[in-house]
């Protein structure tokens, strides 16, 4: 069959047409279910749109929250750094350390490695870069209420320590520092005892002594509280109960919590 003939045939040929009755019957039968499908599909679309919108809102919310937290952390960090640098005792300590450093050493900068807020106690622990020291801040007042240096490290090799005997003068000084503290003053003290011999801690840098006295205070109701005093700088370092040591494990005793608000450095 040649090209022309085929073309002619294709144009002539009658392709099977469907009966109108079948078309009409299907149109009528299918209409109702189709319209119901449209309704259902619209409902699905609305739900999907709502879900997408909620998801978008949630995402934006998370982003905004993260941003706010980051900004707050950053500002908080800056405030605390400023607070540290303005504190004369800390400054003196770091200046002493700096003076001991060899001439070519990199500049010594105080950095806060970690900020940990304890909302129950209303305090913030700043973990600074110098030998794991902890600075305790009153979260509301933004004051330094305690300068911690983890004594439990005294037993570890990172800190050189030895058992020493305190002099009579040092024992008296430790007792005075502890009793002069506003928190201890509020307690009904049954007995007070300065531990002797105690741990001599050679802290921060090799040649910078950090002499600590450990004063055990027993209240009338039998509570035992330990006051760590810095004999080198005449101040209270920290107050703990029998189980806990310093900033990381501050006692949950509400009486002791109150102390932190009164404590001055």
């Amino acid at each position, binding site marked *: 069959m040649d090209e022309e003939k085929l073309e002619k*045939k294709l144009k002539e040929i009658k*392709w*099977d047409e469907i009966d109108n009755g079948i078309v009409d019957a299907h149109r009528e039968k*299918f209409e109702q279910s189709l*319209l119901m*499908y449209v309704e259902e599909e619209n409902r699905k*679309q609305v739900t999907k749109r709502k879900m997408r919108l909620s998801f978008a809102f949630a995402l934006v919310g998370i982003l905004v929250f993260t941003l706010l937290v980051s900004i707050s952390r950053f500002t908080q960090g800056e405030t605390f750094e400023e607070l540290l640098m303005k504190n004369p005792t800390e400054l003196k300590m770091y200046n002493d350390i700096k003076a001991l450093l060899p001439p070519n050493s990199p500049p010594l900068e105080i950095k806060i490695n970690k900020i940990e807020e304890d909302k129950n106690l209303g305090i913030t622990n700043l973990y600074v870069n110098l030998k794991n020291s902890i600075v305790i801040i009153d979260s509301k007042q933004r004051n330094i209420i305690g300068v911690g240096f983890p004594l439990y490290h005294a037993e570890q090799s990172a800190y050189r320590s030895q058992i020493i005997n305190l002099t009579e003068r040092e024992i008296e000084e430790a007792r005075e520092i502890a009793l002069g503290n506003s928190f201890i003053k509020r307690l009904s003290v049954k007995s007070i005892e300065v531990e002797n011999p105690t741990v001599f801690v050679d802290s921060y840098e090799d040649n910078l002594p950090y002499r600590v006295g450990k004063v055990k205070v027993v209240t009338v109701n039998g509570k035992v509280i330990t006051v760590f005093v810095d004999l080198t700088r005449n101040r209270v370092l920290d107050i703990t109960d029998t189980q806990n040591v310093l900033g990381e494990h501050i006692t949950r005793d509400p009486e002791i919590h109150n102390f932190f608000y009164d404590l001055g450095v």
Partner: protein
Amino acid sequence: MKEISDEEALKESLVHPEVFKIIYERYHDRIFRHIYKLTQNVEITRDLTEETFYEVIKYRETIIKSGVPFEKYIYRISTNEVYKYFNREKKLRKFQGKLYEKEEIKGITDDKSEEIDNEKLKEAINNLPELKRICIIMYYFEDKNIEEIAVILNKGKSTVSRILNEARNDLREVLREKFEGKE
């Protein structure tokens, strides 16, 4: 009162489902006939027509956004449904190892009458590969031009022309064998 366009009706149906009736009434018969021409089977035509409308409803927003005239789009969807159906059938036939039997195509006889020639031609068309068959049917029996077919099949005009030429060549070849074999 101004008659609502297909696109407007489609958009409106997103809020008022009953408006879709306008689209349905405008296109049901045309699509039904179009699918029947391609499949030559009433049951399959019913199924594929319904599938076509379901697809239209599901993708209303995409259709509106596409900018393609709705008429072309609905033909594209229905043709695509047919094409998918043919492919499924082909796979099934391969699996079953059977020859496909068309519902209303009669067998070839040795009669040389004009009527029988037409039947042979119809059968040859129905035995063409899917895409070629669709192009031939739309071009010769639905009076669609190459441009319209190209839009419906979402292909270039030159591609459609080439497919049509190849389909005609195939038909000539098949018919030559039949005629010459007999004469």
